[in-house]
């Protein structure tokens, strides 16, 4: 029987404009790479418990674009997109990441560097997310909060009602 729980993610803030996420996986890195970069597999994990991924497009080449859309449990859509900058399978992936729910998504895009290192069949993932400044970084952290989600839903509902 495989051990399913490999560990818990650790989130730290190494600098004003950065978020660093680390996590161990009980699998070799070529498989982590595959789970991370294959649309049908991304669909299965990217939304977490927050909703369902309805679309995952990945054009995995330098300059190629990606776009993920999920329908959150509240019924509204959340979409991110970006561009691949560095691809060194299976150890390094650098891409931009823009949240489409704000004005000028690309102007506030983050740069995400994923490094995978393998030891004894296990993989250590490091995801460094860098933003223009602290304000953008903090907005990303806050967008992940339940309260933030709830507020977006409330705001959306108001807009919907006003349109109706």
């Amino acid at each position, binding site marked *: 029987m495989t051990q399913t729980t490999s560990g818990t993610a650790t989130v730290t803030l190494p600098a004003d404009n950065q978020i660093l996420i680390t996590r161990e996986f009980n*699998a*070799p890195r*070529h*498989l982590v790479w595959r*789970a991370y970069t294959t649309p049908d597999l991304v669909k299965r*994990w990217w939304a977490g418990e927050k909703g369902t991924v309805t679309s995952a497009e990945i054009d995995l080449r330098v300059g190629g674009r990606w776009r993920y859309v999920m329908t959150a449990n509240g019924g509204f859509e959340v979409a991110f997109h970006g561009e691949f900058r560095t691809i060194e399978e299976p150890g390094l992936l650098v891409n931009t990441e823009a949240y489409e729910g704000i004005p000028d998504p690309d102007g506030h895009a983050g740069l995400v560097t994923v490094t995978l290192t393998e030891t004894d069949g296990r993989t250590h993932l490091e995801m460094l997310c860098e933003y223009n400044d602290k304000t953008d970084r903090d907005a990303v952290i806050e967008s992940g*909060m*339940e309260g933030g989600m709830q507020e977006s839903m409330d705001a959306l509902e108001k807009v919907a009602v006003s349109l109706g």
Partner: protein
Amino acid sequence: MARAATTTDAFNAVAEPRRRQILDLLAQRERPVNDLVELLGLAQPQVSKHLRVLREVDLVRVRDEGRQRMYRLNAEPLKPIHEWLRKYEQNWNERFALMDDVLDELKENDDDPDD
């Protein structure tokens, strides 16, 4: 948009890597400033400046012991930061837990490693 000055809240105070190092050292034990100067390899005025910032947000407290001033960590102001990050961390834990399931499946079918 302009942010609050460094000294006004714990969030900003711990954004500086050296100040986080100071907090790590003070988490081990109470220390005089000379200790910190030596361990950090910084000049005393720099260390004192960082300590001043940390004291202003109440992350560090100080008491006199004879001729020395002893600095210690007060972790209470860090609590909101921890809370703030926890939800974000939770999102990633949920994603990665699902990725674990995907990986278990891939491992079973991985007879031909392409690594």
